[in-house]
């Protein structure tokens, strides 16, 4: 009997059989009807087979690998929780990093998951479709594991339980929400540039500094492990974004100006989003790793610079905002913390005045700007605090129509003046934090006039808890903000004197002494 022994397949053949070979061209309906979204952004694709799969992982291997990661992660989380791991962090102030993280990040992971599910459905090529599907599953998993790792803290500390409710209502969570809302309502290719390229490639390392290294430095084994388990997916995410950029640029010369505009736009939007991440590094981690400025220089200026040097071969130029971000790296984290410090009643995490040692650290890390512009503010506030008059700004902020951060950054070249920009569209005036956001607006005004900005909408009675009669004669807009936000009273006010501070000290005492 003749028996043919099949030759063992190479990795590449195995991958091809398990991905591209499983796809087919539709016959009952024309392909362009089945994939209707890939053309309307103006991107021209002539040959989907030219897509080079940057990461050859088959679905079966993917499931096995991810399942094993989950088992390992949850074993570590359980051990952390059982041993009261929350008491081993450096300082109760650290927990405020988790509060801000929980409100801002897992909901965005969820949006990324939804985005990649949608985009994966639209990609004609099987390679990108499979990669998008895996990334979608990764993002759902990251969302879930982040929530699980922080849920243990929710048993002990304030300000964590309503993160999902607050995500679309809290003024300071709106910038991240707006970033993903903008991306997910764009076309599939712009989404890939926004999330796959700008977020996952250009900016992700800066995000990991406070969340993995920060957790490790401050004794939070749970968050650190979640970070490591997510980081093993990141390389795949980065290469997907890069491959998509290459693919578009190589498929047709007409794609270049479109891609360039997206790179300009999303690098800027990502930069704005990172201001609050930088603030965590400079102000919120009790034990610091490096300054935001240092991280920006390594990860954006050096690594990002190397990427843009390579992209120049395609005719891509450095994002327009590049010089401005270099100027701003010495300012934005200070301006952010000042902005947060002054709103102790309107946030789901505590703020505090930097200690004298921390002020000195900031002076050392920001020799050009800190003593000149920011130290005087903190020293003034420390005096007020000592006199029992902690500064508390009760007014509503104005937010940028595009990035939705509060308008608080300085005029380029002039650190003493706040930068305001405005634009009139159909008789209405819109406000922006910068020239870049104004330009983004003016390119697609119909999109951005729809931005829901709570600090503006509240004045129209649109931010009220259920049951409030906005037509009542004595209705006063914004008088129920605590209920609207579902803000825990325990998380209001300065960290010093907070319940978290007292409890942490008392429990640590119990845990370490008889």
């Amino acid at each position, binding site marked *: 009997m003749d028996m043919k022994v099949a030759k063992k397949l190479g*990795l590449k053949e195995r991958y091809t059989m398990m991905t591209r070979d499983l796809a087919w061209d539709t016959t009952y309906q024309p392909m362009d009807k089945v994939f209707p979204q890939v053309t309307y952004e103006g991107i021209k694709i002539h040959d989907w087979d030219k897509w080079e799969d940057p990461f050859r992982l088959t679905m079966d291997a993917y499931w096995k690998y991810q399942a094993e*990661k989950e088992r390992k992660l949850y074993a570590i989380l359980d051990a952390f929780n059982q041993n009261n791991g929350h008491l081993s962090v450096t300082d109760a102030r650290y927990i405020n990093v988790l509060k801000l993280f929980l409100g801002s990040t897992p909901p965005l992971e969820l949006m990324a998951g939804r985005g990649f599910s949608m985009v994966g459905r639209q990609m004609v090529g099987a390679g990108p479709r499979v990669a998008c599907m895996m990334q979608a599953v990764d993002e759902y998993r990251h969302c879930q594991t982040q929530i699980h790792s922080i849920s243990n803290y929710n048993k002990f500390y304030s300000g964590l339980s309503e993160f999902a409710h607050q995500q679309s209502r809290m003024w300071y969570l709106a910038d991240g929400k707006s970033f993903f809302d903008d991306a997910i309502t764009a076309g599939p290719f712009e989404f890939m540039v926004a999330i796959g390229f700008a977020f996952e490639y250009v900016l992700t390392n800066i995000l990991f500094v406070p969340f993995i290294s920060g957790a490790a430095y401050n004794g939070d084994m749970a968050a650190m492990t979640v970070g490591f388990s997510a*980081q093993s997916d990141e390389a795949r995410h980065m290469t997907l974004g890069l491959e998509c950029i290459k693919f578009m640029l190589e498929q047709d010369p007409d794609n270049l100006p479109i891609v360039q505009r997206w790179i300009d736009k999303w690098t800027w939007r990502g930069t704005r989003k990172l201001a609050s991440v930088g603030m965590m590094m400079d102000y919120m981690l009790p034990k610091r790793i490096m300054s935001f400025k240092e991280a920006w220089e390594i990860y954006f200026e050096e*690594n990002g610079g190397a990427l843009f040097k*390579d992209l120049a071969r395609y005719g891509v130029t450095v994002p327009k905002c590049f010089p401005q971000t270099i100027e701003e790296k010495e300012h934005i984290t200070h301006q952010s913390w000042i902005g947060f410090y002054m709103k102790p009643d309107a946030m789901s995490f505590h703020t505090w005045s930097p200690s004298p040692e921390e002020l000195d650290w900031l002076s050392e890390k920001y020799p050009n700007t800190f003593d000149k512009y920011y130290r005087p503010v903190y020293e003034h506030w420390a005096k007020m605090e000592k006199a029992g008059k902690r500064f508390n700004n009760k007014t509503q902020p104005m937010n940028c129509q595009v990035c939705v951060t509060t308008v608080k950054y300085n005029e380029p070249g002039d650190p003493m003046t706040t930068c305001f920009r405005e634009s009139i569209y159909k008789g209405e005036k819109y406000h922006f934090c910068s020239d870049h956001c104004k330009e983004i607006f003016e390119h697609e005004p119909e999109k951005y006039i729809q931005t829901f900005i709570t600090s503006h909408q509240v004045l129209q009675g649109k931010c009220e808890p259920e049951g409030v009669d906005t037509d009542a004669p004595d209705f006063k807009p914004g008088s129920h903000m605590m209920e609207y936000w579902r803000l825990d009273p325990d998380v209001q006010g300065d960290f010093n004197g907070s319940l978290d501070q007292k409890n942490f000290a008392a429990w640590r005492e119990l845990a370490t002494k008889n």
Partner: protein
Amino acid sequence: MSHELTIEPLGRTIEVEEGQTILDASLRAGIYLPHACGQGYCATCKVTITDGEVDHGSASNFALMDYEREEGKTLACCATLEADTVIEADIEIDEDARDIPVRDFHGTVSRIENLTPTIKGIWLRLNNGEVLDFQAGQYINLNLPGDIGARAFSLANPPSTGNEIELNIRIVPGGRGTGWIHESLKVGDKLSLSGPYGRFFTHKSAGLPSLFMAGGSGLSSPRSMVLELLEEASTLPITLVYGARNQAELYYHQEFLDLAAKHPNFTYVPALSDEPTDSGWSGFRGFVHEAAKAHFDNDFRGNKAYLCGPPVMIEACISALMQGRLFERDIYTEKFFSAADAQQVRSPLFKRV
């Protein structure tokens, strides 16, 4: 103690030093393994061990799970060898690579010629009628006397004349090796060498027109490749864009003019970047990439491009090719990956160029 590493599906075997990672050794040997973070976190460089033994080093427990360790997976960026080892990696097989084993040869200098004021042609006849089998584009390591050591030089002759090899060597100011060759080497001297080395060769299987872009003494490999294609009577279009500073530095000019006259599929485009304006030179004035852009009217699609020359020229040519719609998969350079690439000084946008 060093160990041997065999990399499948290439079937190539390389030496790995004690404490050296699989990734580092592979990149230094000119074998590109996919990688990204370089420190064991991201799992991009995961490979399968089919034989032998490794130490996983500092690979993260999430990037390389326990069950994967048991299944024989490892991360090339962290793994060091404990024994001779065979791995299977996710790499493309290049069907044009002949993987000719490296051998040692002895020869006698048979001819020396001044090709330009700074470049000498050196011919070496191999002893006992031996023939150096190589792929046009490859190089050898020439062992120089005393403690000078070995120097790498591309072969300028076509493989058909493997008994007498030709090297075109530019004097490097202050360079010991090239200084010795220019000043002391004479006809009749005996030298030893090893080869062939390198992953730069003609990709004939594609069946596409070839574009060679050469600058200065980077002409050696393209000359060998062009001569071989013409000897093989290839009918596909072949273009050589060759740049030098001035007419005095332009060598084998007449040979290429004659070849172009004889072979209708061969086009020769010389370009001079620093030729006196009143010299009567009627050819292109400017750099190689500019000459190519003008000659091809900024449309390089459908070619295979081979680049040889100083790094600045290579970089300018890559940009010109890409903006003229020819991309990484069709561009080959003599530059190989070094340990620096593993250190992430470049972005991961491109793998080979």
